[in-house]
C-alpha cells in the first residue's frame, strides 16, 4: 500500500505545479486578448481620458509581470483579491456560485453515473438486441443535439406544456433544499442527457472488448451465466477506461456547464468566468480557473488511483 501513498503524494505535488502553470497560461491569455478591462467595462461609451483614468485607478498601468507576481504573492497568503470590475471580494463573489456549481453537478452525477453504467452493462449483456439498439440510438441522438437545444426542448415539454418544473433555476442561498432540487431538475436532466451517452457507450465497449479474452472464455466453459460473467469477471477488469470516462464527464459537469447556466439562468461559476473574460477581469478569471483546475486535478488523480487499484499489475510497472 505504501507505493499508492507515494503515488498520491507525488501527484498532489505535481498538481500544485499544474495549478501554477494554469494560472500563468490564463494570465498570459487574458493579457494577449486585445483590449483591456477599462475599455471593456465602458464598452461603446469609452473615451481616451476615461480609460486612462480607469487604468490608473486599478493599477493596470503597471507592467504585466509586476501584476502577476503581486497576484501570486496574495494567493500564497490565501487572498484571492478583489474584482477589478466592481470592487467586490472575490472570495465572497465565488463562494456562493461555487456551491451552486457543485450542487448542480452532484445532482446531475447522481442521476447520470448509475444510469449510464447500468444501461451500459445491460446493453453489453443484451448485445445486439432491440434493447441495445434502441438505447444506442436514443443516447446517440440526445448527444447529437447541442445542449442549449436539448434544454429548449426539455423546457418546452416540462415547463411550458406540462408546467411540472420551472424554466428558471434562479436559486439563491436561502432557497430550501427541496425547492432547490425542484429548480435544478431540468438543468440536471439536460446535463444528464449530454454526458450519459459517452459513459454508457464506454462501459458497453469496455465490457465487450473483454468478452473475447481467454479468461472469459474459460468462465463460459465453466457454464457460468452471462450476467455473472459480466458482473464478476468482465466488469472488474473494464474499470480503467470506464473510470476515466466517468472522471472526464464529472469534470465536465463542473467546468463545462456555461451554456446550461445561461439558458436556465443558474448562478454558477461558468457564467461568472465568461463575463469576466469578456470584461478582462483577470483576478476573477484567475480565481475561477484555479478552482476548475484543482477540480480537474483531483478528479483525474482519483481516476488514476482507481485504475491502479483495479489493476494491481500497474502498481509495479516492469
Amino acid at each position, binding site marked *: 500500500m505504501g507505493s499508492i501513498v507515494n503515488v498520491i503524494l507525488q501527484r498532489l505535488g505535481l498538481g500544485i505545479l499544474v495549478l501554477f502553470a494554469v494560472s500563468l497560461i490564463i494570465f498570459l491569455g487574458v493579457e494577449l486578448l*486585445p483590449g483591456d478591462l477599462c*475599455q*471593456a467595462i465602458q*464598452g461603446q461609451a469609452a473615451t481616451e481620458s476615461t480609460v486612462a483614468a480607469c487604468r490608473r485607478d486599478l493599477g493596470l498601468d503597471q507592467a504585466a509581470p509586476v501584476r502577476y507576481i503581486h497576484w501570486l504573492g496574495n494567493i500564497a497568503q490565501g487572498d484571492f483579491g478583489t474584482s477589478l470590475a466592481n470592487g467586490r471580494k472575490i472570495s465572497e463573489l465565488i463562494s456562493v456560485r461555487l456551491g451552486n456549481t457543485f450542487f448542480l453537478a452532484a445532482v446531475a452525477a447522481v442521476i447520470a453515473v448509475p444510469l449510464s453504467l447500468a444501461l451500459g452493462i445491460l446493453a453489453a449483456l443484451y448485445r445486439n438486441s432491440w434493447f441495445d439498439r434502441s438505447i444506442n440510438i436514443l443516447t446517440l441522438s440526445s448527444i447529437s443535439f447541442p445542449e442549449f437545444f436539448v434544454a429548449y426542448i426539455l423546457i418546452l415539454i416540462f415547463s411550458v406544456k406540462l408546467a411540472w418544473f420551472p424554466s428558471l433555476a434562479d436559486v439563491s442561498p436561502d432557497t430550501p433544499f427541496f425547492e432547490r432540487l425542484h429548480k435544478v431538475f431540468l438543468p440536471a436532466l439536460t446535463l444528464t442527457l449530454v454526458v450519459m451517452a459517452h459513459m454508457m457507450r464506454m462501459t458497453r465497449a469496455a465490457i465487450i472488448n473483454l468478452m473475447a479474452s481467454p479468461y472469459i472464455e474459460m468462465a463460459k466453459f465453466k457454464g457460468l451465466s452471462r450476467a455473472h460473467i459480466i458482473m464478476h469477471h468482465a466488469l472488474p477488469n473494464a474499470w480503467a477506461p470506464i473510470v476515466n470516462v466517468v472522471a472526464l464527464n464529472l469534470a465536465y459537469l463542473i467546468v463545462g456547464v456555461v451554456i446550461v447556466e445561461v*439558458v436556465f439562468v443558474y448562478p454558477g461559476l461558468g457564467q461568472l468566468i465568461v463575463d469576466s473574460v469578456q470584461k478582462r477581469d483577470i483576478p476573477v478569471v484567475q480565481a475561477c480557473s484555479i478552482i476548475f483546475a484543482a477540480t480537474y486535478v483531483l478528479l483525474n488523480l482519483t481516476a488514476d488511483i482507481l485504475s491502479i487499484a483495479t489493476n494491481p499489475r500497474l502498481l509495479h510497472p516492469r
Partner: protein
Amino acid sequence: MTNLPQLEAELRAGTLSRRDFLKAAALFGLSAAAPSILLGTSAYAAEPQKGGHLKIGTGHGSTTDSLDPATYENNCMQSIGKTIHNYLTQVGADGKLGPELAESWEASDGAKKWVFKLRQGVEFHNGQKMTAKDVVASLKHHSGADSKSGAKVIVDTFADMQADGDHTVIITLKDGNADLPYQVSDFHLAIMPANADGKVDAKSGIGCGYYKLKNFEPGVKSSVEKFANHWNAGAVHLDSAEFITIADVTARVNALTTGEIDAADRMDVKTLHLLARNKNVRVIETSGNAHYSMPMRCDTDPYKNPDVRLALKYAVDRNAMLETVLRGHGYIGNDHPIGRANRYLDNNLPQRAYDPDKAKSLLKKAGAEGLKVQLSTSDAAFAGAVDAAVLYKEHAAKAGINVEIIREPSDGYWSNVWMKKPFCFCYWGGRPTEDWAFSTAYAADAEWNDTVWKNDKFNKLLVEARAELDEPKRAAMYAEMQMILSDDGGAIIPIFNNYIGAVTNKVGTPEVIANDWDLDGQRAVLRWWKVA
C-alpha cells in the same frame, strides 16, 4: 372587405400577422400611419391597482456590474438606476421634459448660465435631507481627470457649478447649450447623498428614488422595495419589484410564457408573431431613436471620396433589411441619427431609396468601378448584425460592389473593431436631443466620431443651434444638418429598431408607453402595476 379597426383587432388577437396587417393597411393608404397604431397601446389600461410584486426579466446585466451610476452601461443597471434614484429632470412617457428633483430652471446669458431651483423636503433612503450640496457632489462625481463616467462628456462642458443656499444650483457652461435640462436627465447623473468631505458614496446604492435597493446580485437578480418616505410616493403603484438577468432570449420568452416573470425586454423579432398568438402575453412595442449604423472612416480610402460613400448608401435596400433583420419592427433610416422620438426630425427630407444604377454611376464618377470593400460585423454590434451584413453583400452585388464580410469575435467588439476598422456595424441607443446625437458621434472633435467625418458647415451650425433658444430657427438649423449628414456623412444609417418588450396579462400599463428606451423608458417599475 374589412375595415381598419377590425384589422387592428385581428392583429391584437394574433390571427393576423404584422406583415399582413401592414399590407392590408396599405390598401387603405395608411402605411405611413400604421406604425403609430402599432405603438405601445394598452388593451388593459384600466385603473392602476396598488400593491404587488413585479418580476422583470432583462436581457442585460453582467456579473461585473457595479452600483456606481458612472458605470451604468446596460439596460438592467440603467433601469435599476432610474428605480432607486431620482434625477434633476426627467423625460416623460410622452417624450416631454418634466421636473423631478429640480422644480424649475431658467437660462440666461445665451444659454450659458443655468439656475436650477430644487424641490424641498426630499429625503434620501438613509434619512438624510437632499440639498444643493448633494446635487453638486453627485454631478462632480462624473467630472475630473480621474472620471470613468459615461457622463463625463456632459459635465466637462461645465465651467463652474455652485450651490446657492440649500435649494438652488447654478451651473455656468463653457458655451451656450439650450439642451442642458435634457442632458441632466441622463441616467448616469443620479443624485446621491454627499458625505462630509463633499464626495458621494456611489457604490452604496443609496439615493432618493421611489424604491430602495433591497438586494443586489450583479448578473443574477436585484430586488427593490417601495420607499415610504419618498416625496411623491403616491405616484407609483407596486410594493416591490425584481430585475432578473436572463441573457438568452429564448429563456426569457419561456419564463414569460410560464409566468415565472411578469415582463421582459428585447423580444426576438424572428418569433414575435408566434409569441403574439399567446393569449396570456401582450407585446409592447415603441419606435424610438435607437438605430443601426454602418460607419465608414472618412480618413481611409476609398471612403475619403464622398461619391463612394453616397454610392454605398444607395447600395442598401433599406426596406428589405427592415423586413428581414427586424421583420418590419422598426422604420427605415435616412443616413442621419435623428429619429421619431426627437423633436426636430425633418420629415421633408427626401427618403433615400435602393438604387443600384445610381450607385454604379456614382462609382463610375469616382473612378471606383468594381469596388471591393471589407465589412466587419458581429452580433455584438446588435442582434442580427451578421445577417444584415449578408444582406448588404447581396444588395451591393447588384450595384457591382463586392463586399467581403469579416465576422469579428463578439468579445471585445467595441474596443477592437468599432472606431478601428474602416467599415463596420454599430448600434446607437439614440439620444433625446438632436444636439446630443450630433455632438456625440458626428461633430469633428467628438470622442466617438466613428466616421472621422469633418464638415465645417455642419460643425458651425452645431454650435449655433446649441445656443439658439428660438424654436423655429432651431428646427430649420437641425433640418439643414440632417440633410448635410445624409448626403455627405460617413455613416449608412439603414434602419431604426423598435423597442419590443412583452408582459403577461397580470401587468397593467398606462395608455402611453415611452419610446426613448426599453421597458417604458426604463421606468416600468415606476409606471406599471400588477392586476390582481
